[in-house]
């Protein structure tokens, strides 16, 4: 707690220093930016088509980087959960058995940190299978026919609706979700979304810093490609980014989604500065590398490709080209380099 306050005070002091420096160095900055934007014309067009293809969330490279950035804090991942209390079990282990147990804990933690998928929004189902004028006015209610065979995936299950006007159509996504919950109920999922996902209640939750609880409930309640899922996630990420509360989701399965959202909307400055504050320089480098992969046509990506940069140089290039708050990042890099040289000397 005191350490955090000290850290925040330091950052505030640093920012005030930076602002003064930035005002003085404004002209030199603009000169540097001009040199950055002059770069793109040099690369060949043939290689452009291959290298400038932006990566997707599901790519192995992206997943690898995100897993590394997420980190592994065993205390946070295996936090004691409120459940029925049982007396504790003690075991005596040899050294090899202890290593094995630690290894098992690591694999279990990796399973628990597996990221939920980021998918494009699902297109609405609007298909009429048959129009039977004969059945018009037969009943005032709609009839829903669901295929309840056990061993088929839910996305291959046929659910059709017979309207009172006689049309036989495929059920919409919301109807599908509701009926699948009726016939194949999932734990803790409600038929109607709980009032927690309304704006006012979400704000209360954000005020109490319970973003992880909101997102976990969202994962339980909604399908990953539904509109509601995306809306709740977007609101949560916006609130985190506005208040700089990145550490709430660090070392949880939800961090990857947050990072991807920020990268897609090109707003990684806050996260970068937060990482540098917490001395996670390698994570910061991976983040900038991922940004370059996701936006291969951006200035920093092209510059980095030209100079074949890696490590701290990547960060410097990013700070020069794309960053909205370059001063803080440069200062942090300087401090890191100084400490490195001091420790080596």
């Amino acid at each position, binding site marked *: 707690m005191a350490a955090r306050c000290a850290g925040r005070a330091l950052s505030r002091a640093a920012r005030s220093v930076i602002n003064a420096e930035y005002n003085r160095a404004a002209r030199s900055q603009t000169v540097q930016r001009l040199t950055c934007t002059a770069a793109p014309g040099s690369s060949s067009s043939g290689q452009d088509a291959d290298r400038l293809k932006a990566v997707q969330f599901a790519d192995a490279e992206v997943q690898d980087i995100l897993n590394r950035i997420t980190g592994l804090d065993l205390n946070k991942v295996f936090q004691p*959960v409120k459940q029925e209390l049982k007396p504790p079990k003690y075991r005596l282990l040899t050294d090899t058995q202890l290593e094995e147990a630690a290894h098992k804990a690591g694999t279990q933690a990796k399973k628990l940190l597996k990221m939920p998928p980021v998918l494009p929004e699902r297109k609405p*189902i609007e298909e009429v299978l048959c129009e039977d004028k004969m059945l018009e006015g037969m009943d005032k209610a709609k009839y829903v026919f669901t295929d309840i065979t056990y061993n088929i995936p839910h996305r291959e299950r046929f659910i059709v609706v017979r309207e009172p006007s006689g049309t036989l159509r495929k059920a919409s996504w919301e109807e599908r979700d509701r009926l699948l919950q009726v016939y194949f109920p999932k734990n*803790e999922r409600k038929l109607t979304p709980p009032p927690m996902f309304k704006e006012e209640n979400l704000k209360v939750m954000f005020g109490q810093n319970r973003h992880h609880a909101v997102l976990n409930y969202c994962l339980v309640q909604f399908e990953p490609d539904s509109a509601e899922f995306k809306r709740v996630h977007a609101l949560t990420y916006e609130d985190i980014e506005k208040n700089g509360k990145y550490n709430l989701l660090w070392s949880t399965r939800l961090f990857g989604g947050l990072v991807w959202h920020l990268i897609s909307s090109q707003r990684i400055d806050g996260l970068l500065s937060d990482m540098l504050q917490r001395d996670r320089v390698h994570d910061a480098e991976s983040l900038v590398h991922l940004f370059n992969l996701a936006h291969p046509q951006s200035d920093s990506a092209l510059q980095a490709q030209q100079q074949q940069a890696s490590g701290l140089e990547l960060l410097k290039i990013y700070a020069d080209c794309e960053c909205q708050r370059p001063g803080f990042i440069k200062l942090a890099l300087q401090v890191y380099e100084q400490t490195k040289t001091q420790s080596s000397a």
Partner: protein
Amino acid sequence: MAASIRSIVRAPSRIFLVLQRIHQTQVTVGVLRAPVITPVIRNFFYSSKLLNLESSEKNDHGVESLKDLSRYKDKPWKYLESEEYIERYGSKPVWANYRRNHKGGIPPQKTRKTCIRRGKTCGNPCPICRDQNIIIHYQNVSLLQQFISPYTGFVYDPTRTGVCMRQQKRLNTAIETAKLHGLIPTQLPFVDYTGEDYSNSHGAVAHTPPPPSKTPDEPWYSWYGSIEPNEHELARVKKIYKSYLK
């Protein structure tokens, strides 16, 4: 049990009243009998069940009217920060100093059904009914948390807290609503996304081509005519079901 005894006791008294009224009408002029008899019949048909229903409604109103008179009926959570509350309960939960009265060493496994019947409170009411200002509301989170274990997250049994069954039900519903609103943290299951296909390419959720125009010569599916059974298998099955085949 007590209600049925009471109804049995009431019945002869009603019959007596009826007989009295009939006697009175017999004494008076016969013309007036008809209008006089209808209230008699109404009394006779005034069964004990109807009386009990009315009294139970009155009971609910009785309980709610007691809490409605409280100063904190609009904002029940304010009471838990007031001086009155702190003086009475301090930092302990509301049910800490309550002790049930029962015969023998082992208490009955259910607490009493309700503390307030027909507007009258019983002796030794439960921790919620004895204090007019303690109102069970889903937004009154600090009160609800007193009835949830901080270690397991389960709601305490009424035999432990001493609340009557009616208040326990109301407490359970309030806690559930609070959990749905996100005011009380819940333990959620881990959602596994491995092995799920989100491509949405199957005909059930994607666009399927319309059926081909009807040509009676062509079979519906292209493979309808071309599949032929294995002859050995066919012979084997025919041999097994020989007696059933024509």
